[in-house]
């Protein structure tokens, strides 16, 4: 279905945008100058990814308006005249239309929590993009290929910090352990397919079929366009457990997981984030600087 791919593209874009925005809240407030610059650079990478993905989503929307227009109901969005662009998708949708994972919208907390959030997410994103760069959808594949190089830096940087803090002082270890206790429950939904993912995902064992022809992504069979999220879970757990071991941190036991992000049911934090992020475009539509 065309709508599944549109929602999936939005889901990827929302994850990148919201985490990028969260990281940007550190700009000027980092624990020291080098790490302030590091987290700001990661924010920039993620917002750049989001832009590419929203541009692709906007292209789908403009090409298949009849099929897709019912999916976004926010009044501000529906006031846009003519073709939409990436900014309309970022700034004019309401909180109950965002599909990002709950993990990325969680507040920064202290440095340990920010680091852990980045690490858990970047490990997931690396596995996702490694598979997605073989997608039969050439644009999704190109975005994954381009982003992956940057994501590898994010994984290493955040993983090194997890180790440094976990195996650091009593205080830093306590804070890492608290961060794990607070964020772990949001990792479950990364690996549970939403309906749009189910429709697009390949079977876990079969490689994505490469039947796409340039310029006709919509005519391609949509099955096998994206990896099934369940298929990423085991490798992700291994990577996280291995890093926690080096960091002398306790791996959490299997426990209850909160979900809903991909179906637009969010924690209370996302609304506040969007209020700040979207304020200017909502108050002064179309303003530029």
């Amino acid at each position, binding site marked *: 279905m065309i709508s599944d791919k549109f929602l999936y593209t939005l889901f990827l874009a929302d994850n990148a945008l919201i985490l990028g925005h969260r990281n940007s809240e550190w700009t000027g407030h980092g624990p020291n100058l080098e790490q302030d610059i590091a987290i700001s650079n990661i924010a920039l990478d993620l917002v*750049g990814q989001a832009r590419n993905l929203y541009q692709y989503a906007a292209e789908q929307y403009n090409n298949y308006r009849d099929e897709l227009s019912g999916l976004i109901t926010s009044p501000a969005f529906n006031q846009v005249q003519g073709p939409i662009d990436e900014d309309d998708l970022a700034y004019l949708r309401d909180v109950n239309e965002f599909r990002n994972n709950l993990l990325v919208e969680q507040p920064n907390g202290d440095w340990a929590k920010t680091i852990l959030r980045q690490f858990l997410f970047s490990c997931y994103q690396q596995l996702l993009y490694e598979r997605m760069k073989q997608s039969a959808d050439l644009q999704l594949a190109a975005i994954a290929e381009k982003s992956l190089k940057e994501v590898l830096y994010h994984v*290493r940087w955040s993983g090194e910090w997890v180790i440094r803090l976990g195996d650091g002082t009593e205080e830093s270890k306590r804070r890492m352990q608290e961060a794990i206790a607070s964020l772990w429950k949001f990792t479950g939904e990364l690996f549970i397919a939403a309906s749009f993912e189910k429709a697009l995902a390949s079977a876990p064992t079969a490689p994505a079929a490469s039947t796409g022809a340039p310029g006709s992504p919509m005519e391609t069979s949509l099955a096998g366009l994206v990896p099934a999220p369940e298929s990423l879970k085991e490798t992700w757990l291994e990577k996280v457990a291995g890093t926690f071991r080096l960091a002398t941190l306790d791996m959490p036991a299997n426990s209850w997981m909160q979900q809903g992000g991909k179906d637009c049911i969010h924690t209370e934090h996302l609304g506040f984030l969007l209020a700040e992020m979207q304020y200017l475009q909502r108050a002064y539509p179309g303003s530029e600087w």
Partner: protein
Amino acid sequence: MKMQEAKNHITDIRAVDAATQQVWQYLEEVTDPEVPVLTVVDLGIIRGVITDGKSAEVTITPTYTGCPAMDMISTNIRMVLASHGYAPVTIKTILSPAWTTEWMTEAGKEKLKAYGIAPPNPKQSVCTPEYFHREEAVQCPHCNSFHTHMISEFGSTACKSLYRCDDCQEPFDYFKCH
């Protein structure tokens, strides 16, 4: 596309008619706003030129996904070509194959060094997944010493890391492999 094929492709698209070569020459006037000694051609981000001598279509690829200089580079390409009488000027952006520092010209690397930025090491040593792994020694652009160490993986812009020379003690930017 494999690296070598991509490079051959660049050579191929440049070895064409005089009108196209003329546009490539004009593109040498467009510099990277963040590293003003490098032209867009030095950077290796021009992926194609189509022109009939009147209008021009230039295809570019971003260095980094979120590189804020890309919009400015597009505008500057447009302005330079317009100032030479081309109309309309179209800029297309492609993401694949993804840009790598291997596409930077040798002339570009020399200009970087003269400017005080260590050029990317020739060997493609993109981020290994191992923790606390460091890539091979980076040469100080000031005194040529290899006794240098990384201060921060992320430098003043997305494309650079911050280093310091243990011999001359000067800090310097390293245009990191990508």
